[in-house]
């Protein structure tokens, strides 16, 4: 007996718990298998690039928090680094250390959020609560430093506004010590878990060649065996003075990305620990005191840092005034999400959730 089959098109999202925001996928299905995927983004488009053209350089910083709201510090650093590069401003050493401490802590927090939600999507409920428990501690540290828990606006052009509060260093040390123990617990729950392996091994394959062709960066690229990390390749800030490894895995699948991100958290903890020791006790925090920026007219620059999701770049064109003529944010989620369609090809509908999770999408980041 022959059954007639037809391809079916269904919507996944935009209000779907596993899409981490508002991502809509048009799926073309053949039974339970995905034939084609068409991601629809833009639900969180706020026109930040258009807004930026009407604001002074200093006033754009708070908007950058609101793009990648999981990792606002990285967005701050990428934007401010671009402005400093455009103006040739210098950042004092102590401020650089504070920036790196914050950014790396935020990388841990971002990866914790990813781990919790990714595992939750795949059915592991308890680790979600554990991850949020540790993330809460990092947010407390941020709150003690800059008063904000999500949209930090913690840095200024050519420096940071304040020194670390008294006792902060000890609290941070204590957290890192605790985090190392907790990290072992996460591994005990997931790394050799049979269900976890079944759900992640050989799911969402993306090899190095595809990654490069599709402009995919960050942990997804490193889990395809390419040791690309801007902190090592094009060291900015003080990353050339700290010692850390770039975790690489050539599994190319969802499990490999899990392994890479887990290791990255430990490396970030290592960087923070070194920075706390190496940071000069005294020193200026701001490189310049003037409020007006007057970059050269008609010049353009691109500055990129290694965010938790990949290359986070900012492209600026100046017209000689204190506002950018054009301010373009090259956000990693936007580029990485192009890989969604090739990764979803042929997988089961349930694994689409795993693929979205493994790309670590933040829709505010891609939609701007």
């Amino acid at each position: 007996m022959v059954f007639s089959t037809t391809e079916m098109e269904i919507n996944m999202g935009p209000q779907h718990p596993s899409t981490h925001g508002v991502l809509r996928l048009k799926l073309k299905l053949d039974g339970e298998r995905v034939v084609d995927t068409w991601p629809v983004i833009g639900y969180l488009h706020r026109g930040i690039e258009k807004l930026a053209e009407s604001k002074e350089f200093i006033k754009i910083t708070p908007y950058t928090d609101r793009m990648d709201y999981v990792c606002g510090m990285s967005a701050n650093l990428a934007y401010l680094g671009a402005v400093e590069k455009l103006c040739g401003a210098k950042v004092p050493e102590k401020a650089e250390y504070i920036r790196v401490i914050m950014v790396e802590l935020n990388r841990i927090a971002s990866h914790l959020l990813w781990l919790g939600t990714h595992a939750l999507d795949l059915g592991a409920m308890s680790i979600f609560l554990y991850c949020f428990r540790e993330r809460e501690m990092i947010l407390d540290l941020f709150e003690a430093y800059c008063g904000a828990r999500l949209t930090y606006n913690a840095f200024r052009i050519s420096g940071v506004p304040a020194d670390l509060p008294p006792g902060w260093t000890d609290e941070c040390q204590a957290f890192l010590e605790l985090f190392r123990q907790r990290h072992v617990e996460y591994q005990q729950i997931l790394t050799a878990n049979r269900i976890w392996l079944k759900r992640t091994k050989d799911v969402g394959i993306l090899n190095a060649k595809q990654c490069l062709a599709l402009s995919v960066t960050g942990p997804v690229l490193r889990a395809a065996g390419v040791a690309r990390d801007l902190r090592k390749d094009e060291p900015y800030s003080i990353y050339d003075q700290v010692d850390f490894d770039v975790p690489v895995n050539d599994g190319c699948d969802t499990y490999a990305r899990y392994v890479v991100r887990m290791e990255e958290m430990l490396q970030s903890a290592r960087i923070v620990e070194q920075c706390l020791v190496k940071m000069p006790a005294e020193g200026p925090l701001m490189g310049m005191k003037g409020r007006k920026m007057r970059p050269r007219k008609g010049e353009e620059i691109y500055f990129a840092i290694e965010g938790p999701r990949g290359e986070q770049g900012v492209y600026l064109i100046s017209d000689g005034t204190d506002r950018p003529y054009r301010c373009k944010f090259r956000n990693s989620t936007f580029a990485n999400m192009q890989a969604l369609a090739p990764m979803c090809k042929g997988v089961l509908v349930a694994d689409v959730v795993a693929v979205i999770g493994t790309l670590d999408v933040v829709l505010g980041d891609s939609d701007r």
Partner: protein
Amino acid sequence: MSADETKPPESDKPQSESSEPAAAAPTAAGEVAKPAPEAPKAAGEVTKPAAEAPKAAGEVTKPAAEPPKPKPKPPDPLLAKVASPAVDRLQAALPDATGEPHYFAGEVTLPVESDRLVEVCTFLRDDPACAFEMLVDATGTDFPEEEQRFRVVYHLASLRHVQRLRLRTQVTEGECLPTLTGVWEGINWFEREIFDLLGISFEGHPSLARILMPDDWVGYPLRKDYPLPGYPEHHLRYREADVVRRRYVDISWQSTGERAAGIVNKYKGKMGAAESAPHMPATPVEDDGDEAGT
């Protein structure tokens, strides 16, 4: 440190003066050595940071008889030329395809004519000495005053040689650029974004649709003549007319009305006063208490 912090404004100042007639004093020191009453006004006009004003006032007290000798301007470190093997290689292989490279802050910008774009990019990707495997970013900018209105830049990165390159091309309104999806597949969404926000079309693009704005949006928001709050008539359109007329496709085996009725029936009897009076109850205080209890 304070010398460094005033660098950016200072570096801009001689540039703006150079556009004045040659009769004016060529150096910064010469300008400040004008009669004293004018000095504060000038300082305000040039919109220097406040930190610099005392320094300028200090210089005014210098003897005015000192001849304003042309001080050699220190070369701006931002404008220093950087070595770029990829550019040398490209210019040797395709000598007439690109313009003069521009250097700023350690970055190289290479102007390319739009009709040579695919050829240049394919060479940059495939040549082992260049090896720009990845297109990092592509974006456009609107320059309404210029003859060719749009400027599109492509940021390339070579992971093997750890180098970057920016290609820049220009296009007039209504003209197409060739798509680079054949060279780097990942440019697809970046080109869609440029199309969406600036209205530049890419010839040969596999699926040139809007990406960030709604499909039926009118206008291109990143053009400089597009007002920041948008067009008011569009607000109206999205608030009322279209939303009311928009029809939803029924995706279930039941019609929406039936499903809604089913949900109401399911909860009938559990909701107390609410089912008999879906609108506001006559005596809100007592009824509220009843509902909370049941």
